[in-house]
């Protein structure tokens, strides 16, 4: 149960970090900015330790049920954000991204946390590869979504000719747009890897690479949205608000793929996550 204890401690630290980012951003108390980062680093270390312990105890990558999925997503999102944060001193992005991770952690905290033996179909090296890559894609898309939200906020403030106020806690428009694009491209690359690795696994397990199961369709649709973003960016020169809204749409597709299809349509091949 050491992993669950670590999870609880990390949860409290995430909460503290989230508050600190908001105090630093909206309350403009700059002293809280380094505190927020320190809390978040501590949370990620404790949480990471918990994930590692669970992996060691169960003998398989902790990505096999709903608790493990949400917990890993929240952890990976925060690690990804911390890597981004090294390039910016602004507290705004942290204030936007931490609540998302906090929601994932909160959802995980009410789910059953016991370690159960794996169902036969999941006993494969492909569990770590396919599910791991999928989660990295989701995390990358989430960070792209946060960049887009920050962009839309900055754009609205500048269009209304208001004092920047909180806006000064966010990177520049150009920086946000570039960051969103790069993250979305990385995410598209990872999602492609997820679809391919899933097909290979399916071929091994059932002898067919593709079965038109709801989550597969949703993942393909998500891939389509980001491919559209990529195409309009290069082909039609879409920038600014239109591009940012596409990233928001992409994130909605991610949510549908990750949560919606499994919650709404149990019984598919991916439904073991919520058994």
């Amino acid at each position, binding site marked *: 149960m050491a992993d669950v204890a670590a999870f609880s401690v990390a949860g409290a630290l995430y909460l503290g970090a989230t508050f600190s980012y908001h105090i630093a951003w909206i309350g403009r108390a*700059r002293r809280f900015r380094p505190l927020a980062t320190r809390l978040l680093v501590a949370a990620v270390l404790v949480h990471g330790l918990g994930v590692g312990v669970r992996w060691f105890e169960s003998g398989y990558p902790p990505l096999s049920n709903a608790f493990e999925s949400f917990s890993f997503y929240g952890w990976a999102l925060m690690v990804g954000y911390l890597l981004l944060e090294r390039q910016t001193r602004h507290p705004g992005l942290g204030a936007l991204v931490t609540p998302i991770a906090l929601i994932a952690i909160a959802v995980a905290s009410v789910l059953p946390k016991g370690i159960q033996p794996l169902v036969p179909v999941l006993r494969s090296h492909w569990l770590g590869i396919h599910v791991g890559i999928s989660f990295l894609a989701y995390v990358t898309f989430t960070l792209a979504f946060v960049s887009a939200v920050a962009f839309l906020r900055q754009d609205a403030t500048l269009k209304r000719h208001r004092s920047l106020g909180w806006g000064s806690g966010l990177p*520049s*428009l150009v920086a946000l747009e570039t960051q969103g694009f790069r993250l979305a491209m990385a995410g598209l690359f990872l999602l492609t890897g997820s679809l391919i690795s899933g097909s290979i696994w399916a071929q091994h397990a059932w002898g067919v690479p593709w079965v038109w199961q709801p989550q597969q369709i949703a993942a393909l649709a998500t891939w389509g949205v980001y491919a559209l973003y990529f195409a309009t960016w290069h082909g039609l020169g879409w920038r*600014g608000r239109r591009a940012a809204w596409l990233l928001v749409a992409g994130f909605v597709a991610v949510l549908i793929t990750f949560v919606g299809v499994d919650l709404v349509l149990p019984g598919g091949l991916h439904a073991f996550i919520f058994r």
Partner: protein
Amino acid sequence: MQLVFVGLTHHTAPVAVRERLALTPSELVDLLGMLTHPCEQGVAPLMEAAIVSTCNRFEVYGVAREEKAAGDGLGQLLARFRAAAPQELTPYLQYLEGEAVVRHLFQVAAGLDSMILGEPQVLGQVGQAFQLAQSSGTAGVVLSALFRRAVHCGKRARTETAISEHAVSISHVAVELTRQIFGSLGERCVLLIGAGEMAELAARNLSDNGAGRILVVNRSLERAQALAAQFKGLAYGWESLPQALGKADIVICSAGAPHAVIHPDAVRAAMARRREQPLFLIDIAVPRNVEPAVGQMANVYLYDIDDLQNVVQENLAQRQREVPKVEAIVEECRAEFTAWLSSLDVASTIRDLRTVAEQLRDDEVERALRRLGPLNAHQERVVRMLAHNIVSKLLHSPTVRLKQLAEEGNGYESADVLRDLFGLSGSLRREGHG
């Protein structure tokens, strides 16, 4: 010993009075000398003095020997120094004593007392005042500590609160907005439409902040070339405006034209050429150079003179909201300084010194007795007396001397040295001097 202050600021004195006290550095040095060694009767000399002199303030900070400060005398000395009648200056002078002096200097350093709230220059000016006093030999222990604390307090106010954040002048707002859109200004192309003074000022500002190429479009090509040459930029005739617009990231319009010269169609064409990269239009011309509809277009940010003015007002209001936080920092710094100052009190220094010495003595005696083993009562008394007498005789002379100095009025200097040498708490010498 008493901290004293006499001075005038833009709050209390009109410029006609302030300009009478605009002194050159060498005059300031002379005045510092006069304050600490007055040749006139009836004016008590200051033991330490420093002068903060800017275009908005003239302030003398001093340490007076007597508890009852000689405020009036100082005012008259100032008037005589400028060969002015006392009534020309004295009605505008403000006098402070003790903690109020500390609070005032810390507020000044934090930018709370400035004409533009939170402006950064005053911090440097406080530092310069200290350096001048130091090089003139008029800054002693107390003023050195006071001014170092003031600079520390000013820095804290600016890093921990938003009192200096957000531009409060039109040109700085323009630069800040540019940064918010493009990040760094490097490599960004600036287009000036109109080659008047306003355009020149704005271009200078952006260029100083690292903007890349500068293009100038003007009705008179000659004037455009003259302005472009200043910034090693390129000049265009009026007819080349559409092409120039396609190259620019930042456009500053200040052309004197009876109607708009930039229409939505031209901007749409420019945006297509630059692949929807953001375009920042600053229209400081009246009547406006840019049709307002341009501001509705995607990725185009249009600010006219009123928009910029509104941002200035909002930013000022935001700084105003930071004042309580800064006041709290000032109060914290003042409390620290006051605690240090009162530790310089001779009586408490002697008490602390004796406490430390006696503690040391008792510890050593106990250790010695333990190592000697069982002694008879007489032998033990001799050991105790030995330690007691050494400590008492060693401390006698410094104690007497310190009391003597205190009666003369400068015991605090020695008290601070003593605290430093014996490692007693409270010496500012041990800190990094912020």
